[in-house]
């Protein structure tokens, strides 16, 4: 059976250890050198970056998350043993694992590391579809001749280089489509390399829960459950037309997924639908001044991300969470899409001004959606706001300064509130 050593990247036929370096970290699979769709997922990415930069944390449980009131964004594997999970409220995480070291995220560092990883991936193939900072799909079809090695070897090399040069480990899922590649990468974390071949696809899926499908959340799973669909075998019993009738646009996709088929291409420009940022406060606040500062900072972040992706949005959303965790959300459509922090801020601020509640709030978020390419944005000025053009020019100038000297090189006064 085709096999590969993950330490020295030596390909060989069936053995228990690598014949060249004697390492036991080998992968063997009949289709190993034929599959070309992969999903790479970094292991506890944020926590791994923190551990790398502060060796004192290496043997301690580390939780990356926002302050004492926020939620866990990443927990390292030591903390995960105690039951800490992503998105868990911090107080619960600390109850499970009181000795954990809580680190405030350093998003700028993560973005930097993510960029380096992306560059490494780009050496493998141009067909990369990033899902977030720490995971991406890669399509290596047709690259074997170019690299002189099959995709499996190049992927093993990718994670090895990541570990050697960046100190970040990742897990690879290799299969014949995106759905299965994503499932595979999760099978053997951390430092995993899992393969799901054509031949065993049906057998592999058989008893798996439909919750495995990316995009099937709790609500949809409950709807499937109502229809008596719990496993893929249940799903296989349904006719395509019946699935369509019951689940609408998702029906077709379910029918194909039930058979382990997923025809979505790995595409660099998987359209993003919205950009949003939010922040949970250390203490609940009702102060307009403080909230205003947050609205500005978040608007600027959203704007930065929109500019980085060359997108602009037509809908601005303001999200507020009250002390009792009830959510309040307001949105408005602009006549003319925007990517400017100034317009996002002014719109979000106007939405805030119309909220009748006095607060206090524990969380504030600003979002931009209904995205379009940036060349359709900010094309016309506002008759009633003749200074807008001036402010837009100032914003472009400060963007140029920030690009050159760093994000903190120039700030608005209101960002300091």
């Amino acid at each position, binding site marked *: 059976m085709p096999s590969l050593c993950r330490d020295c990247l030596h390909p060989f036929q069936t053995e228990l250890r690598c014949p060249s370096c004697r390492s036991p970290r080998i992968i063997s699979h009949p289709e190993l050198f034929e599959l070309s769709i992969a999903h790479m997922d970094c292991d506890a990415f944020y926590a791994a970056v923190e551990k790398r930069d502060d060796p004192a944390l290496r043997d301690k449980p580390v939780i990356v998350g926002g302050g004492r009131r926020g939620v866990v964004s990443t927990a390292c594997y030591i903390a995960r043993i105690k039951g800490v999970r992503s998105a868990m409220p911090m107080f619960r995480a600390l109850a499970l694992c009181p000795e954990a070291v809580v680190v405030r995220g350093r998003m700028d560092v993560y973005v930097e590391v993510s960029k380096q990883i992306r560059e490494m991936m780009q050496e493998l193939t141009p067909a990369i579809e990033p899902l977030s900072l720490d995971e991406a799909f890669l399509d290596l079809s047709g690259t074997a001749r170019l690299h002189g090695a099959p995709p499996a070897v190049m992927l093993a090399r990718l994670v090895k280089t990541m570990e050697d040069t960046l100190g970040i480990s990742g897990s690879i899922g290799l299969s014949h489509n995106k759905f299965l590649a994503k499932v595979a990468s999760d099978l053997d974390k951390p430092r995993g390399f899992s393969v799901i071949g054509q031949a065993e696809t049906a057998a592999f899926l058989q008893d798996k829960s439909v919750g495995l499908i990316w995009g099937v959340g709790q609500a949809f799973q409950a709807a499937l459950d109502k229809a008596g669909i719990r496993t893929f075998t249940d799903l296989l019993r349904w006719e395509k037309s019946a699935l369509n009738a019951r689940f609408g646009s998702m029906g077709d996709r379910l029918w194909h997924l039930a058979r382990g088929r997923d025809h979505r291409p790995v595409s660099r420009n998987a359209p993003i639908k919205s950009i949003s940022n939010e922040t949970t406060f250390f203490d609940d606040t009702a102060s307009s001044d403080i909230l205003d500062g947050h609205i500005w900072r978040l608007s600027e972040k959203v704007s930065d991300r929109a500019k980085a992706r060359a997108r602009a949005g037509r809908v601005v959303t303001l999200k507020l969470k009250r002390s009792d965790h009830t959510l309040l959300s307001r949105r*408005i459509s602009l*006549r*003319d*899409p925007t990517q400017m922090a100034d317009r996002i801020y002014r*719109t979000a601020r*106007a*939405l805030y*001004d*119309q909220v009748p509640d006095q607060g206090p709030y524990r969380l504030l978020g600003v979002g931009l959606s209904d995205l*379009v390419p940036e060349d*359709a944005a*900010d*094309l*016309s*000025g*506002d*008759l*009633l*706001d*003749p200074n807008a*053009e001036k402010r837009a020019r100032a914003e472009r100038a400060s963007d140029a300064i920030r690009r050159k000297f760093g994000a903190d090189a120039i700030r608005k006064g209101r960002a300091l509130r």
Partner: protein
Amino acid sequence: MKISIERGTLLKAVSQAQSVVERRNTIPILANVLIEADQNSVSFRATDLDIEVVDKAVAQVERAGATTVSAVTLHEIVRKLPDGALVVLSDNGTSGRMTVEAGRSNFSLATLPREDFPVMASSEYTANFTAAAPVLRRLFDKSKFAISTEETRYYLNGVYMHVANGEAGSVLRCVATDGHRLARIDADLPAGAEHMPGVIVPRKTVGELRKLLDDDDMQIAVSVSETKVRFATPEITLTSKVIDGTFPDYTRVIPAGNTRKLEVDASEFARAVDRVATVSSERSRAVKLSLDEDRLVLSVNAPDSGAAEEELAVAYGDDRLEIGFNAKYLLEIASQVDRENAVFLFNSSGDPTLMREGNDTSAVYVVMPMRV
């Protein structure tokens, strides 16, 4: 209550009522029309708490009284009855039902007690005047297209009706803008309007008012206070709250120093804009105007859908100019011109452009250009 009323008369009264009533309502009584009958007239009253309309109609009143029924249902029934039918509305005051009879048709509608019906508090009006229907029609028709729908700037969601200083003294002026375009329409100041407070008439009220203005010979009684405005014909009284806000200082928005003058046949221009805009992308709808000595080229270049160009002979004698606009805004503005040529006054490709009809300054429009 028991009344007999001609179907056409009833339909007119009820249709005005049902258009004021909000379709989605959390307060059941607001979906109803209040029918009040005394001696020989009957009135139909409907409200959404911001607007109230009362329509008096001639009817034969057999038994005076009052009740409320669903405005939409009653309207639908009356609409479907044959023309010329005599309709009898009656209730006995205790059954909670009102019957509608016409020929062999018989309906029974649920009622709600008239005591629950909110009647708009009357107001002390500070100005009362009359204006001919065509005058008000022009003021509102030519300005309403520019009303904003943006809720964050709620003070733009209406037409600002006020007294202003025109070139030849005081005028009654209506202004509307959404920040992209602006319309400023003037009319002679009617006697009695001199001390009228400026009010922002909400968009919905403007729409309802329009139904009162179809008859050219009609004189409309207008009453204005700081918080309310009322328009009345002998049959219909429309009372509305005005938008509680300050209309922005529009005078500084209207460019005074634009010198580059383009004169063009408005309908020819509008048709050409419409044609070239066919290929523009749904999102931006930008049309480029390239002006040169007596020549205007309209062009659209939408990378994903195509390109279009059309040339028009115009009167233009200034330097070359290229300027872009949203096609929809250009069309709307050009379609306001009905008698003479459209005159555009430009400054630069980034500055607001002014448009008027010939040399008539009683109706001017401003539109913001678009980067192309």
